[in-house]
């Protein structure tokens, strides 16, 4: 079956002040505030990417999750840049930033907040960082829909639109946040790209 060829070759889950890489605890914060957790995680990774500080919180979260996902797990030279796709989803779109932007409108509307008032900007930040040029999409669901992500991403892989894909969930609103991102490649063995395996990692 085609499904068995789609393998989760890496995963990163961020939630409840904990960061898991491939199911193993990588980092544990001690902050009740996500605005402190994200820079703390950036300092832990030390990627030397000053543009990080300019991002909104959903982009920071997705960018960090992808950074952890790919580090040491992704053989970038194995793929053409246009063969790597990104498919993300969440439930609150860019509302976290929309609200911050709205607060500035009565005075001087902030251009740098305005540019983040779309959820797919997080995909742009990931693609700028890694120069990926493949298919991308951002979906809004009430909650994480692993079945849909498996079906959509599997379709991209099956039809050759992409040869590798980063997919999952990147959600933040105020202090409520969760990221669960997966690297899916076509391999002979490994963790099968199934909804059940994604849910298991998501719920760590």
């Amino acid at each position, binding site marked *: 079956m085609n499904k068995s060829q789609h393998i989760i070759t890496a995963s990163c889950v961020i939630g409840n002040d904990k960061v898991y890489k491939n199911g193993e605890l990588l980092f544990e914060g001690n902050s009740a505030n996500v605005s402190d957790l994200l820079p703390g995680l950036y300092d832990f990774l030390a990627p030397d990417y*000053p543009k990080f500080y*300019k991002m909104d919180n959903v982009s920071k979260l997705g960018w960090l999750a992808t950074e952890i996902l790919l580090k040491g797990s992704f053989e970038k030279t194995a793929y053409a840049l246009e063969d790597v796709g990104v498919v993300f989803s969440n439930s609150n779109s860019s509302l976290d930033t929309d609200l911050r932007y709205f607060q500035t409108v009565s*005075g001087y509307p*902030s*251009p*740098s907040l305005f540019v983040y008032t779309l959820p797919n900007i997080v995909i742009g930040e990931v693609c700028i960082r890694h120069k990926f040029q493949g298919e991308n999409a951002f979906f809004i669901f009430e909650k994480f829909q692993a079945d849909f992500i498996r079906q959509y991403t599997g379709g991209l892989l099956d039809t050759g639109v992409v040869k590798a894909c980063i997919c999952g969930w990147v959600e933040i609103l105020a202090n409520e946040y969760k990221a669960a991102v997966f690297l899916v490649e076509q391999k002979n063995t490994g963790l099968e790209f199934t909804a059940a395996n994604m849910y298991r990692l998501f719920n760590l």
Partner: protein
Amino acid sequence: MDKLMYDLKTQLIEQLNLQDKKPEDIGDDEALFKEGLGLDSIDALELIVLLQQNYKIKLANAEDGPKVFRSVRTMAEYITEHQGKTV
């Protein structure tokens, strides 16, 4: 002028989210865009907002932007020249 330039550097760091910079890291004559501080087009819009918000100066002619925002010193000179005037 020195005090104004220091204040501007502090405001640039705050407004443009340059958390990896300190005021002393930014040269008075260092280019703000491209090879200098590396600001982008969105930052340019934020600089226009900064002038309005902090100094009540409205940059009426967008063509003046590259000259005014060339460095911290050129910004300070522009503010000194135009503060209190209607531009």
